């Protein structure tokens, strides 16, 4: 292990641990926590979308399933968060296994639309099964996690600072697992399937088996993220299945850097921060007499314009920077060493 790497790692660790103290106010901490959920979501999604190259529009369903599972267990059965969390992850994984068996043999446009249909059906069920989910009203009052350490006392993750550390732990776990998986024969198999599926099959890679692995693993982390999300916002509604969320996740993966470990992390940070950054952009229609009334309700950029910017970035980004930001930066600014069997060029 090179000295510079160890040093870099220590600095990064110190930085991550110190965030709640460095950051100026609670709102920014909230944003970082939010980004944390998406780090988990995007990293898991990257396995299927980035490494294997299959577009899935259904990832949000796993997120929502995990959230609802954990929230319902806590609210209706009184389960502590620490049981609800793995339950959420496992439920999502089970759905992924069942769905995967049915659809992972399909490729191309059909796969994309099936995953979308799946997500919509799950959303419809959550809207309409009022007995279970209370429909549109959502579930409120989801308890925040608490941890009893004998001898030390009780830690409540209600405060943003405490929750930050909780989400940090899970982000690290998620990214670590994805890193290990990507730098093993599993990762190589996924990329082989993406690059040339018949050739991959002929060297012994079972496309079905490995796509299942990517799909289920991604779903599991999405489920965990969902549970954490539910216990953080303490309220969950079927809006979690909104199409826009999955588009955000995909954008983070594709524009952050597909088939890299750092890509989804950077993507999550950038695209969680983007709406906030856009808030500082002044409303160009402010003060214009001919502007439509609904656009000039505040001095900040209206929501419609923010989303227009997002849509445009997505459109231009996938066309002009198809590999994503991280590979682009790497190509421009460094000659990365040879990709070894057990080590992807990983700047951390």
């Amino acid at each position, binding site marked *: 292990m090179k000295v510079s790497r160890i040093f870099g790692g220590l600095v990064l660790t110190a930085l991550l641990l110190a965030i709640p103290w460095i950051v100026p106010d609670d709102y920014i901490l909230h944003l970082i926590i939010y980004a944390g959920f998406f780090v988990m979501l995007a990293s898991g999604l990257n396995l299927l979308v980035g490494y294997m190259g299959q577009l899935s529009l259904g990832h949000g369903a796993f997120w929502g399933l995990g959230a609802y599972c954990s929230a319902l267990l806590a609210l209706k059965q009184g389960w502590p968060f620490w049981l609800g969390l793995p339950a959420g992850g496992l439920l999502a994984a089970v759905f992924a296994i069942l769905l995967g068996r049915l659809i992972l043999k399909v490729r191309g446009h059909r796969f994309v639309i099936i995953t979308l249909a799946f997500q919509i059906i799950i959303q419809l069920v959550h809207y309409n099964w009022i007995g279970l989910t209370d429909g549109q009203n959502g579930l409120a009052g989801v308890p925040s996690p608490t941890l009893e350490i004998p001898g030390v006392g009780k830690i409540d993750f209600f405060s943003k600072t405490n929750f930050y550390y909780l989400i940090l732990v899970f982000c690290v776990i998620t990214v670590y*697992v994805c890193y*290990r*998986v990507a730098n*093993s*024969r*599993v990762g*190589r*198999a996924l*990329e*082989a399937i993406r*690059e*040339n599926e*018949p*050739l*991959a*099959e*002929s*060297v*012994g*890679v*079972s496309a079905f088996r490995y796509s299942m692995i990517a799909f289920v693993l991604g779903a599991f982390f999405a489920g965990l993220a969902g549970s954490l999300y539910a216990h953080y916002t303490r309220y969950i509604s079927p809006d979690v299945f909104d199409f826009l969320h999955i588009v955000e996740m995909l954008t983070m993966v594709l524009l952050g850097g597909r088939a890299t470990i750092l890509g989804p992390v950077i993507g999550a940070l950038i695209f969680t921060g983007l709406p906030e950054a856009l808030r500082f952009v002044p409303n160009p229609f402010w003060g214009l007499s001919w502007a439509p009334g609904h656009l000039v309700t505040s001095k900040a950029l209206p929501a419609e314009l923010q989303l227009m910017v997002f849509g445009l970035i997505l459109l231009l980004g996938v066309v002009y920077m198809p590999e994503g930001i991280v590979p682009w930066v790497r190509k421009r600014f460094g000659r990365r060493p*040879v*990709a*070894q*069997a*057990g*080590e992807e060029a990983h700047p951390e």
Partner: protein
Amino acid sequence: MNPQRPLLEVNCLTIRFGGLVAVSNVTFHQNEGEILSIIGPNGAGKTTIFNIMTGFYRPTEGGVFYRGESLVGRPTHAISDLGIIRTFQKTMVFPKVAVRKGVLMGLHKSSKVGWWDILWNTRLKKEEDEALEQEADRLLEFTGLANKAHMEARNLPYGEQRLLEIAVGLAPGPSLLLLDEPASGMNAEEAGRVLDLIRRIRARGVTVLLVEHNMSVVMDISDRIVVLDHGEKIAEGSPAEIQNNDNVIRAYLGEGYQRARGQRNS
């Protein structure tokens, strides 16, 4: 294992696609260690036989046996488990990854570590990674691609892409290698490299079955040749025998080749 029994036996193999009979009652065998070439005019059914052997197609009649075991009905990745690997007529590589990484992908089956080792990057995994690295380098050396290890496969010149294909084909450690037109589209120098490579592959103990159009390659390297025309076998023998076989000459080689070889049949 019966030492007299051929490594590969193709018996009365027939396949019909609708009304079209692509392969009709073809029988031949190949012994371990020999280089066998299948030749014939376009559409003779050569690649179709490869496709049947590797499980892409199911024959209508007949069978294929490898070391006595039937191949018919097995899925592709199971056949590759038996030690039969093929290359393709159309260049098949992993285009956007580096040459070396592509070979590592070919080494997929050599990786035996389980989830625990992957997750914790145990010593077992590190050792396996090291071994895979070395094997990849060896394969690159063997096929002459060592200096192009970090190039993206799609940026390689055509001839070297074909060599890469062979390198990836060798990675799973086949005992029978099916090469589909390895020298197609190559100039004399590139074809020479392929020829040399095939010889070295045989020296390693791998049995090679070729489909090829390039006559000088075929005549140069084959121990035996099987000739197909319109899905039927019309001749079988050593290169010398095939060159003098009337049926073959009529169907395929043509007078031009005879003249070039200085053998004119009046």
